[in-house]
């Protein structure tokens, strides 16, 4: 079916994105619920296990995500101001941040795995219950978050291409707005993941 101008509904598209974000919040909400309960049952173990995580990498990733969130938000302003060059730069910074995040995660996970701290490993099975659950949660939550980050980066990549092609411009930019919303969601989740996994010791 052709979708021509009369059918265009930016507010509707944005509303749709928001409702989708609600479902994502509840998806992670389920995990946070599990986290809360397990922490309630094994406060000591969680306390000690979270020391194993590298706060520095976590903090770095937090910064990276915050900066990228800002650049995405700015890129919308840039598009609205018809500043194509600025928008491109801002989005490139965002994507660069995504890459930094990925690289950090790669080292972080790699380190854990080299220590045999991953779900199902022989070492894990011998740890105390709270430890097992903590690391399972750690991998599950950050893994799911990572998946979202990658999806978000792909959407922003598409938006970037469309900006270059002029398909996203100061009249049509709802795709960029929606991609931005999604990216902020990724940030939002990390804002909670970071203290819960890395800090509360």
């Amino acid at each position, binding site marked *: 079916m052709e979708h021509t101008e009369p059918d265009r509904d930016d507010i509707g598209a944005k509303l749709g994105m928001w409702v989708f974000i609600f479902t994502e919040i509840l998806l992670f909400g389920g995990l946070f619920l599990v986290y809360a309960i397990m922490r309630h049952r094994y406060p000591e173990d969680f306390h000690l296990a979270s020391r194993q995580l590298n706060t520095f990498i976590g903090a770095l990733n937090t910064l990276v995500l915050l900066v990228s969130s800002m650049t995405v938000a700015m890129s919308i302003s840039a598009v609205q101001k018809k500043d194509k060059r600025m928008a491109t730069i801002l989005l490139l910074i965002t994507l660069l941040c995504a890459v930094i995040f990925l690289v950090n995660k790669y080292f972080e996970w790699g380190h854990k795995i080299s220590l045999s701290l991953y779900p199902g490993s022989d070492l894990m099975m011998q740890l105390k219950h709270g430890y097992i659950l903590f690391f399972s949660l750690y991998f599950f939550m950050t893994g799911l978050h990572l998946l979202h980050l990658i999806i978000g980066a792909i959407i922003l990549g598409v938006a970037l291409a469309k900006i270059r092609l002029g398909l996203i411009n100061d009249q049509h930019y709802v795709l960029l707005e929606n991609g931005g919303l999604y990216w902020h969601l990724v940030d939002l989740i990390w804002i909670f993941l970071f*203290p819960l996994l890395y800090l509360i010791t």
Partner: protein
Amino acid sequence: MTTEEKHITSYSLYARVLIILMVLTAITITAPSLNLTAFTILIALVIASTKAGIVLTYFMHLKIENTLLRIMVIMVLGIYGSVIILTFADYIYR
């Protein structure tokens, strides 16, 4: 055709928001070393919620969106909060 009138948020506002967020992050990172023990979780969660609130209002434009959306966000968070409380009604009293 339905588009909305444009709100162009200035770069400097975003930059200021980022600085606030970074400051809050710095606080959370240092808070545990102050040894407030029982309160660390609470403090961390309060700060995280503040940060989330800021991201929602400024980056995600809830400030300039219509009220409907704001009501929806509050409703969703309310439902999720109640679900947590009810689940804990089981775990706390076990």
